[in-house]
Structures are given as structure tokens and as C-alpha cells.
């Protein structure tokens, strides 16, 4: 491979590395920002629900017997098509059982241990979790004695966010490719311009050296040498040529075997 493409390729590898890492960092930032934004929206919805439930609990009604919760959950789910389910589980006395849910089949089932642990944490304001098909946020339900008595969980669509994230990935990938293509072109031009002196010097020197080998008049001489390297070469060539001439003369006289 010639010098120019070799150097160009190296620069392209570096550019590809830097552009792809930057595009990936941007993509990850979008992913986390979108997720935070959507999550914080559902935390707001969850907080509304929490205030309503805690209002009942503060009146002394046990969580499992609070009548309007099921209706509240249904209303919340209906308010946003991205909400897949809303559930309330208890801690004290109910051992992490799901007490209310927009999915009736879940009522009476045990809540995941991680929900219960998160709700029981003293400093817990909200927590989040990932499932295969959904993201979720949870909020603890606190009674008048500032003790957690249960939790509220909202599960919302993962597909919605994933669709947006995938589309952003494609868009960022496309623009990174365009930038890379332009940078490639500029890199090739730049390297060609900067390396032409070295490349042409060596091409001229090699051509002249070949003519020396073929016993022809050298193409590069002290008269037409331009760069310091060519001047040095011309000097070398004239001295070497004297040695070669002696040897060739000896060869012509039959003093050196032809095979050599």
C-alpha cells in the first residue's frame, strides 16, 4: 500500500473511533434524559395517587379496607394510554400482598421483594424498576406515624420509549456517517497534499535508482534535485555510480560472471 492511503486510513480509524464514541455518548444521554423525563412524569402521577391514598390512611382506615383506591387506580390508568397497570401493595400486616390492581388477576398475589424492600426504606421517596415489557416507578405509602404501610406502583410502556430511542439511534447514526464521510474526503485531500513531497521524492529517487541498476542515465541528478533528500540522493548516486561503472566495466571485460 502507498504511503498516502496508509496514513489516510490511520486518520480515518481515529476519526471513526472519536465520532462513533461521541455519537454513542449523545445517544446514551438522550436515552437517560428521555427516561428521566418520562419517569418524572409518572412520579408526578404517582404522587397524586399517593396523596389520595395517604389521605385515607391518615383517617385511620387500614390500607386494605380503603374503598376508593381501586377506582382511583382505574382512573389513573385511563388517564394515560402509556400506563399499563397501577397497583397498591401493603407491608404492615399484609406481608407484601398486592391489595389493589388495575389487573384483577394480580390482587392477592405477592409483590416482588424488591418493591417491599424499597418501600420499607426510611429515606425512600420513589424507586424505579425495569421489566421486559415495561418500566415502572414506585412510591411508598406513609402513615401518620411516618412509617411505611405499603406502596404504589405504576408500570408504563417500554415500547413507547424504545421506539423513540431506536429512531434517535438511527438518526444519530446517519448523521455520524455523513460527518464521517465528509471528514474522510477532507482527510484524503489533506494527507495527499502533505505527503506529496515525500511520496514524489521517493518515487523520483526510486526511478533514478532503477535507471542506475539498468545502466541507464539517471533521471535525478544534482542539477534537478529539489529537496534536501533528493540532493543527498544525487550525491550518493554519483559516488555509487563510479563504483558500479568499475564493476560494469569488469563485467563487460568478462571478469565477472554474468549470472551475478
Amino acid at each position, binding site marked *: 500500500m502507498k504511503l498516502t492511503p496508509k496514513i489516510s486510513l490511520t486518520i480515518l480509524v481515529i476519526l471513526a473511533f472519536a*465520532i462513533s464514541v461521541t455519537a454513542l455518548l449523545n445517544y446514551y444521554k*438522550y436515552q437517560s434524559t428521555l427516561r428521566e423525563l418520562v419517569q418524572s412524569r409518572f412520579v408526578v*402521577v404517582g404522587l397524586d395517587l399517593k396523596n389520595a391514598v395517604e389521605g385515607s390512611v391518615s383517617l385511620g382506615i387500614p390500607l386494605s379496607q380503603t374503598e376508593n383506591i381501586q377506582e382511583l387506580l382505574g382512573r389513573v390508568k385511563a388517564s394515560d394510554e402509556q400506563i399499563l397497570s397501577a397497583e397498591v401493595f401493603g407491608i404492615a400486616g399484609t406481608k407484601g400482598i398486592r391489595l389493589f390492581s388495575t389487573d384483577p388477576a394480580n390482587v392477592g398475589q405477592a409483590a416482588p421483594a424488591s418493591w417491599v424492600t424499597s418501600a420499607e426504606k426510611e429515606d425512600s421517596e420513589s424507586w424505579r424498576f425495569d421489566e421486559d415489557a415495561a418500566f415502572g416507578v414506585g412510591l411508598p405509602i406513609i402513615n401518620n406515624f411516618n412509617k411505611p404501610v405499603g406502596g404504589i406502583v405504576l408500570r408504563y410502556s417500554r415500547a413507547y420509549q424504545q421506539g423513540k430511542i431506536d429512531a434517535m439511534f438511527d438518526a*444519530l447514526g446517519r*448523521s455520524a456517517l455523513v460527518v464521517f464521510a465528509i471528514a474522510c474526503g477532507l482527510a484524503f485531500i489533506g494527507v495527499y497534499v502533505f505527503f506529496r513531497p*515525500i511520496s514524489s521524492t521517493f518515487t523520483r529517487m526510486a526511478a533514478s*535508482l532503477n535507471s542506475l*541498476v539498468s545502466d541507464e542515465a539517471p533521471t535525478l541528478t544534482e542539477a534537478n534535485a529539489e529537496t534536501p533528500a533528493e540532493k543527498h540522493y544525487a550525491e550518493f548516486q554519483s559516488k555509487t555510480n563510479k563504483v558500479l561503472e568499475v*564493476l560494469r566495466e569488469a563485467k563487460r571485460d568478462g571478469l*565477472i560472471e554474468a549470472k551475478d
Partner: protein
Amino acid sequence: MAVNAATPFVGPIRARLFGLTIVLLLASLIAVSFDALNRFEADLVPEMDKKAVAVGQSLTKDIQRALDYGIPLDKLVGVNEFFNVTKDSHAEIKYLSVTDTAGNVLFSVGDAPGGMSDYVQSTMQPGHSGVVGQLLVTSLAVQPSGGAQPVGALHVGVDQKFVQKKLEDIIFDVAIVLLVALLITFELLLFLMTTNISRPIESVHRLMSKVEVGDFRQTLEHDSRDEVGRFVHTLNGIILEVNAHYRNMEAKVNEALADSSEAAVQLRKKLSAHFFQLHDRVHTAKDARPEEVREKSLVDVRTPMFIFIFAEELSRSFFPLYVSDLYRPVPGLTQDMVIGLPISLFMLFVAIGTPFAGIWTDRFGSRNIFLAGAILAIAGFVGTGLAPDLYHLLLWRSLTAIAYALITMSCQGYIVAMTTKENRAQGMAVFIGAIMVAAICGTSIGGVLADRLGFRVTFFMSAVLSIIAAVFVYNTFQRRQAESTQAPPKLRLVHFLQLLGNVRFAALMLFGAIPAKIILTGFLFYLTPLYLNELGNSQSEIGRGMMVYFIVMVFGTPIFARLADTFGLRFLPVLVGGILAGGGGMLMFLWDDTLGVILGVGLLGAGHALSTAPLISMVPSVCAREVDAMGQTTVLGVFRILERVGSVAGPFLTAFLVATLGSAHAIAALGALVLGSTVLLGLFFLIAGTKTAEEAA
């Protein structure tokens, strides 16, 4: 980068090439990030609007409840306090207000954007959104339950620049990518320029100069097919031809000399005419086979060293966190000490392994020892990544430490072998430069990788990089290494005892070198990742924070060294460096958040950049007698080993301090330790002087 002077026209081309790459990198990264910002804004603003609606609905519900109790809208109490809580809970919400049906503002928090009153007058549509100044304002109707007429409106103003501000967070990430890309660019281009251009051109020039004076005893080993390669190929052909013809002719002369026939006499005359024209002018290889030489370069050692240290540094920003994931109680040690244990053990094995690695390098050659070290490193990284518990981790890290000692010593051995006493410092500067640049790149990229791929996968990537370094050395290091011009010193116990008997040397170790290593491994390597994690920073952010130390070191060390040389200062930079490093730690007393830690790390870097080289250069002057007796290399070798006591003790001491004082105060205590020892060092040398009266005389 070759030891010999660069050929004149290579330098400007290299500079232009770096310039071109930097400009292209900057322009590309700015273009990619600018495009991303525009796309993010277009995509995220509707999501922010949805959130504003959700917040608005939540607030209107509470207002509605009050209205349902019959309280008029303008008589509501505590609305602003209530709004303030909401505004403070959501970073993007900058303005909240309630207006009556006439558009009069009844309650508001945050700065109203210019044109808000016009907006309020023009719209009372529930769910309406509009851009007012810098804000995207969403309005919702405020009305009692049961479908009553609205009595007012709630306006939620969201900062339109929120997305942009979010993106500003990654400017640091992008800047780091740029810095790392530039440093890697430098390494790659350096390698490429040296192997393909500088070295062959220099070699060609050297060979042409030899041939010019009739020396045809060498050819060049160069197997590329580019312009330079083709030229070298032809040049080698001419040299081979001259050798073959000359030897052929010489053989014939000898034959003719042995033959006394008339034909032989004639032939001899003819041959002599030619042969003796060349005899005094041409030197050929004895067996007509010129030696094939390959010019060595420091890049041969710099590049694999860079790759290996990069691999090792990938885990720097998360290693203590990884250890805490594998924590298992160890009798007699606190949890903090157990977390510090693998770092201390690593330092211990490096310290123990280094002298042996030096001896083995001399015996088996740099290439073999590097390759052996690489095999151990690969096993060590894979084993660390797979470690099921702490004890396995300790085993694999110890193995990696031995690998580290083998690899660094083999590289040093290679440099010693290819340099002379005069240019060895330049060679070692190349070596240290590679380590520091790799530390910058490895620490930051390691953090990003750990964030995205996890701790274990990052160790596997280190193993892959070690394979690349090994392949590199396999291809570039010579099998038969040239012998060093200087035999390496053999360290003996008596050397340690003699040096420690010199009270000045002992003071320099105890109050200067060892505390510097304690704070390095204790604060930077052990506690910074743990504390930054405790403060809620991501792995990328931790990597970024730690990298500040290496950046300050890389750029600060040569500047401070030059200043110290210019003004002939040795002791003052050591003192100022100690004060800076100690002050960096003590900063935690005042400023114990993320920024404070990063500033402390930066000050530690500045302190070490200032003091490391002068501290080492003080050693020969405080040990003039010992240098005369055992040689400077031995004295410095003892110094290097003894200072590692600090590296081993650092994590343990810090763990003890953390258990007693907590993380922030532990860092501050380390700072106080360094500051205190620096003061003692200053007082000691102020009273005792840096030389004995005898030495001074």
C-alpha cells in the same frame, strides 16, 4: 522519536499531519454534537410539555379541592409555598402562576417571562401551550368539580433550554473523548510516522551516507510496499550486487594469483586494473552477504507499553467498587480495610516482583519477559473479571501485579539496551510519557466502559488489549537483544541499611517520598472512586474526576521541571509540592462535595507534578557518599523500592481513617499527614542542611 536526529523534512510534515487530524476531529465532533442537540430538542420538548400537563393537572386538583370547599380562588392561602415545593422538585419547571378569568395574576413563583401578560390575555384555553420568552408555557383551566365554569387558569412554564442544559452535561464527556482521541491519535500517528516514514527515511539517509564512503556491508530490513519500501528494495539490490561482483572479482584475482600461466598473468593484469580501483574505496561484507539491519526506535517499546498500561488503567476508576461488590469478611480487618486490601497487595507484589523482573530481563531478554508478563496479565485480567469472591480476586490481582512488574521492567530493559548513558534520560522520558498518557486515556475510557458494559466486561477488554500488546512485542522486539552498555546494579540488604543509616536520606523517605505514595494510593486509587460513588457520581464521572490527576501530571511535570532547572531549585519545589498535595486533601474540611474532591485530585496532581522529579534529583545530593560507594543507580533503586512502602500502606491507612473519621475527613486527614510531614521535612533540612559538612567540603 528515534534516538537519532530526525530527518529535516519529516518534522514539518508530522506537525501538519497532527494539525490536520486535530482540526478534522474537532470539526467532526462539533458537527455531530450540534446535530444531536437539534434532534434532542425537537424530540424532548413535547415530552416536557406532557410532563408540564401532568404537573399542572396535579396542582389544579389540589386547587380544585379547595374550591370545592367553597374557598374563592383569590382567597387561597399558602399557594406560593405549595408552588415553590413543586418548582424545586422539577428542574425544568421555572414558572408557575394562577390567574383569574380577567387575566390578573393571583399567585406566582419564578420569574415571569416577558410577554406573559399578553399571553394570559390572549388565551384561556385549557391545555393550550405557547412559547413565551425562554419558556414553554402550558395553561390549564382551574374550576370546581362538577363541570362548573372555570374561575381561573394555572400556567406552568418549562425552561426551553432544559434540553440544551442536559446536553451541556455531556460536553465534558465529549471533551474527554476528544482529549483521549487526540492522545491516541498522537500514539498511533507517532507509531505510523516512525515505522513508515521517519525511521526508514533516517535509515535510508544513513545507509546512503555509508555507501557514499564505500561501505557496502549493510542492507536495510524493510518490508513495506510503499514508495519508501520500493526505494529500499532497489537500494538493497545495488548493495547486494556490488558485494557479489566485488567478491566474485576478488575470487578471480586470487585464482589468477595462484596460477602462473600466461593467460592467468594477462587476466591478473586486467583484473588488477579494475580490482585495485575499488580495493581501497569499497568495503564489502566478508561472505558477500551484507548484514541486514533494522533500525530500532523507542516507539517499539512506547506503543506496547502504552497499550498495556491503558489496559491496566481501565479499572482504575471502579476497582474499589468492584472489590466492595465481592466483599467477604476477613478476620481482623474492617470492611474498609478489606476493600483496600487488593490495591495494597497489588502494590506489594509489584514492589517484590520488580527486582526479580529486572534480573530475569537481563537473563532472558526483554522480549521473552514481556511476553511472559503479557500471558500472566491476560490470565490476571480474565481471572479478575470472573472472580467469584474476594479470595479469587486477591489471587488474580497478585498475578496481574507480577505481570505489571515483568512488563515494566522488560520495557525499561529494552530502553537501557538501546540507549547510551547520554540519551537514557530521553528514553526513560518516553517510557514515563507513555505511562502517563495511558493513565489519562485508560482511567477515563474505563469509567465509560464500566458504566455501559459493567465491571467484569471491562476486565475482559483489558485482557484483549494485553493480547494486542503481546502481539506487538512479538513482532517488534528483537529476539536477540543487544547487550546493555551498562550492567544493572544488584540490590543487597546492605545497600538498604547503609542508605537508611544516612539520616538525610531517611528523612527524605519518611517525610517526602513515602507520604507522597500514601496519599496517591490512599486518596486517589482507593478512596476517590468510593467517595465519588458515595456522592452519587456515575462511573464515567468518577473516571473523569480521577483523570484530572494524570492530566495535571502530564502537562505540569515538564513545565515545573523546566522551571526548577532554570532557577536551579530542588528543595523548594518539593516543599511547595507537598503543601499543594496536602492542601488538596485538607480541602475536604471545607468542601466535601464532588467539586471539592476533583479540586483536591487536581491539587494532588499539581503537587506531585511539582515535587516528584526534584525529590528524585535530591537523592544523589543528600547521598553523595553512598553514590560514590555504590553508584547512583543503586541508590535510586533502593529509593524506588522504599517509597513503595507508602504505596502498600496507603490504602490500609486510608481504610482505617475512613472507619474512624468517615470518607471526607479521611481524605482531609491524609492531606494533614502529607502537609505535616512536608513541614517536618522542611524543618529538618533547614536545620540539618541537604549535605553533610564533609560532603559540602
